C-alpha cells in the first residue's frame, strides 16, 4: 500500500524539518519527503493546513487489563490512543495481577500485536507484585520487552530497596519511572493541601509528599548512576529539584500531564470528583512553575496518566471516589489549544514533548520524518474547533473534567509502524496490514 500525504506542514524537531512537504509512504517505509510530488498509484490525502509530526508517544496510560476490564481493556485503550493521536503508549503495570512477571509483559506485547492499533509498550513493576518489598525480575522483564519499570500508583517507600533497585538496574539503560509520594505525608489526603483544602475542610496532600521523595531519589540516582524518570510532576519544588539535577548531569527526566499544566486546585472547589487525581491538582504557583519547566526543557514529555474509572466509582463523596481522569483522547488538543495557540510553546517544542521527548525518556530511537525509516506519523488539524464530548470517546470510561471545552488541534491521521490506523479522525478498522 502506498500513501501520499500532501501539503501538510511537517515539523520534526529531531531532523530539524519544518516546511510544507509531501510525504510518500510505501510498504510502511517513508520513501520520499519532498514538495509537489505525484504518485499515481498511492492513496493521496490532501493535508493542506494540517500539521504533520513524527508519531506521538504517551509515557503513561492505565489500561486496567487484566483485572478491571469494565473500565478499560488493552484493546479499548489501544484504540483510544489512536483516536488521541498516539502511535504508541506505555502501559502502566498496576493491573490485577500487576505486570510483574516476564510472562505478563510478553502477553501485553502479544496482545498489542494482535489488536493492531497503537503499540502497547508495557512497563513492568519495580518491585515484586508491586508490593514495595522486594525487587521484581527486572532483567527477565526487560528481555521480555518491558520498556521501563514503575510501581506507578505508589512510590517505593523503602529507601534501601529503592537504592538497591537503582544499583541493580543502573546498567540497563531503561528508565525507572517513579511515582513520587511519601505515603506518610500524603496519607488521608484527597486534594492539594492549600487554599481549597482549607476552604473545603478536606485533608490535603502537601506538595512536600512529592518533593521529599523526588529529592531522595535524585540523590540516590546521583549515587548509583541509575536513570530515573519522574512521573506526573505536580509541585514547583519538584521542578526546582529536577532542574538542578539536570544541571548537575544526573540521569533524570520528567513528565507532566495536561491536567496539571492546565487545571489547579480551584477545579476541586465544587467537589468535582473528576478533578480528583493523584498527585492532586495543585496551586496556580505550582502550575505556573510546571509551564515554565515545560518551556525550558526541565519537563521532557507530556504524559496523560490516562486513568479510567466508571461513573459509579466517581459518583461518590469526594473522599470516597478513586483518583484519576482519562486523557488519551484529549491530551493533544488540550496542549495545542492551551499552549501552542497562545504562543507559549512553538511547534518544535510541541513535537519534542509528544514524540522526541518520550522516546528520549525511554532511551529509544526517536520517530523521525525522514526518508528510509518506518512511518510513524501523527497529523493534527490546527484549524477546526470541536467541543470535547465524552460520549464520542473510544475509551470505555468517561471520567474527564474537560467535557464541553472547545479545542483545536484534534488528531486526524495516524500512521503507526507503517499502517494507516486513523483516517480523517476515524479509526481504520480491519487493519490493512502490510509492509
Amino acid at each position, binding site marked *: 500500500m502506498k500513501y501520499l500525504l500532501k501539503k501538510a506542514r511537517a515539523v520534526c524537531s529531531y531532523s530539524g524539518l519544518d516546511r510544507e512537504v509531501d510525504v510518500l509512504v510505501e510498504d510502511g517505509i517513508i520513501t520520499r519527503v519532498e514538495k509537489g510530488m505525484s504518485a499515481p498509484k498511492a492513496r493521496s490525502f490532501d493535508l493542506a493546513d494540517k500539521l504533520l509530526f513524527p508519531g506521538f508517544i504517551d509515557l503513561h496510560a492505565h489500561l486496567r487489563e487484566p483485572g478491571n476490564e469494565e473500565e478499560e481493556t488493552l484493546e479499548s485503550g489501544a484504540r483510544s490512543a489512536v483516536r488521541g493521536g498516539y502511535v504508541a503508549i506505555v502501559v502502566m503495570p498496576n493491573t490485577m495481577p500487576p505486570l510483574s512477571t516476564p510472562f505478563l509483559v510478553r502477553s501485553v506485547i502479544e496482545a498489542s500485536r494482535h489488536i493492531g492499533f497503537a503499540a502497547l509498550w508495557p512497563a513492568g513493576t519495580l518491585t515484586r507484585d508491586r508490593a514495595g518489598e522486594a525487587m521484581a525480575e527486572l532483567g527477565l522483564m526487560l528481555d521480555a520487552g518491558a520498556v521501563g519499570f514503575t510501581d506507578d500508583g505508589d512510590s517505593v517507600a523503602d529507601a534501601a530497596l529503592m537504592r538497591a533497585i537503582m544499583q541493580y538496574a543502573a546498567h540497563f539503560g531503561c528508565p525507572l519511572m517513579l511515582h513520587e509520594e511519601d505515603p506518610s505525608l500524603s496519607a488521608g489526603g484527597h486534594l492539594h*493541601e*492549600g*487554599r481549597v*483544602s*482549607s*476552604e*473545603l*475542610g*478536606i*485533608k*490535603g496532600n502537601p506538595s512536600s509528599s512529592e518533593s521529599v521523595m523526588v529529592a531522595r531519589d535524585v540523590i540516590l540516582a546521583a549515587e548509583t548512576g541509575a536513570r530515573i524518570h519522574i512521573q506526573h510532576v505536580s509541585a514547583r519544588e519538584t521542578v526546582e529539584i529536577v532542574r538542578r539535577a539536570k544541571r548537575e548531569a544526573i540521569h533524570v527526566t520528567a513528565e507532566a500531564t495536561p491536567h496539571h499544566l492546565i487545571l489547579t486546585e480551584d477545579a476541586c472547589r*465544587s*467537589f468535582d470528583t473528576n478533578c480528583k487525581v493523584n498527585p492532586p491538582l495543585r496551586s496556580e504557583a505550582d502550575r505556573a512553575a510546571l509551564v515554565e519547566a515545560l518551556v525550558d526543557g526541565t519537563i521532557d514529555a507530556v504524559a496523560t496518566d490516562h486513568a479510567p474509572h466508571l461513573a*459509579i466509582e466517581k*459518583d*461518590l*463523596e*469526594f*473522599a*470516597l471516589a478513586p483518583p484519576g481522569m482519562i486523557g488519551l483522547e484529549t491530551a493533544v488538543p488540550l496542549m495545542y489549544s492551551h499552549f501552542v495557540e497562545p504562543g507559549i510553546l512553538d511547534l518544535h517544542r510541541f513535537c519534542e514533548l509528544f514524540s522526541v521527548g518520550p522516546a528520549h525518556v525511554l532511551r529509544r530511537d526517536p520517530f523521525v520524518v525522514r526518508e528510509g525509516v518506518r512511518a510513524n506519523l501523527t497529523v493534527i488539524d490546527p484549524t477546526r474547533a470541536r467541543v470535547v464530548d465524552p460520549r464520542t470517546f473510544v475509551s470505555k470510561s468517561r471520567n474527564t473534567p474537560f467535557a464541553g471545552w472547545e479545542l483545536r488541534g484534534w488528531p486526524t491521521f495516524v500512521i503507526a509502524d507503517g499502517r494507516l490506523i486513523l483516517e480523517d479522525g476515524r479509526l481504520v478498522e480491519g487493519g490493512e496490514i502490510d509492509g
Partner: protein
Amino acid sequence: MRHLTQISDVSNRDVERIFAHAREFEAVLDRRIKKVPALAGRTVGFLFIEPSTRTRVSFELAARRLSADTVSLAASSSSLKKGETLTETAYTLAAMNVDCVVIRHQLEGAATKLAQLDLFHVINGGDGAHEHPTQALLDAYCALKRFGSLEGKRVIIVGDIAHSRVARSGMQLWKRLGADVVAIAPDSMLPPHLPDGVSLAPEIDDAIGEADILYFLRIQRERFTESCFPSVAEYRRYYALTRERLERIPERAVIMHPGPVHVGVELDYEAVHHPQSLINDQVRCGVAVRMAILADFIAGEGGGLEIPA
C-alpha cells in the same frame, strides 16, 4: 431550589430575615403548646450518616414544632450500610416526595453533592470538616441577642480550627456580621489558609483580655493520633479555658462552645457553668433558628407562615 450547604449560600439579608423569624419562634417555644402550622403537610427527611444526638434532636424538634412530618434514615438503619450510594438514596427520598433533607455526614461535600442533584431542599447538618452552617447561624443569633450588634466585637476562636466545620462556617459569618475574628491554635491545628480578614493570635492569655466572645472548639480525641498536639495536659496549658484563665476574662465577655463539651479538656466545669456562659442558650436558640431556617427554605422567604398570636 434553595439549599443551605455552606454559609455563603445565605446573604446578609437572608440572615436578617431568618433571625427575625427565629425571634418569633423563640416566643412560640415559651408557650405551653409549642407548635405552629407553618410546614403542615410538608415532609422533612433526616439523613444522618454520621451519628449525632444533639443536632438531630434539635432539627427534629424544629421540624415537628413547625408541624412537618419527619422521616429518619440513620446510617445503621438504611441501605447505605449495604453499599447504596448517596446518589441512590437521594433519588429514593425524592421518589417519596420528601420536601427537604437535613444531612449529617462524616465526609466533606456530601451535602453539596445532594444539593447538586437538586431533588429537594438540602440543609447541611454538618459535613465532615467542611461546614456546619446552621451552627454558625444559631451561634451568631445567640450572640446577637446578647450584644445587639456584632459590629466591632472581637470573637476569639480557640482550638482545632483545621478540622472544625463549626469554625469554617463560623469564621465567615462572624466576619460578615462585622465582628473582628481572631484564631488561636497551634499551626498543627490551623488550615494552610485562614479566610480573608481572620487574624491569628499566638497566645490565648494575651487575647483573652480583649475578647467579647470566647468561642472554644471541641477537641477530637483522635487528633492525638494525628499528632496535632502531644497531650491533654499540654493542650490545656496553652488553649483551654481553665479556672485560672476564667479569672481574667472581661466582664462583658461571653463563653460559647458548639457542644458537646469535653468538660475538663477545652473548658473547665466552672467555665461551662459560669454566669457568662451562653452554652445552654446556644442549644435553646438552636431550635428556634433551625425552625426559621426550615421555614425559610421550604416555605419560602416569608416562611410561609402567619404565626398565630
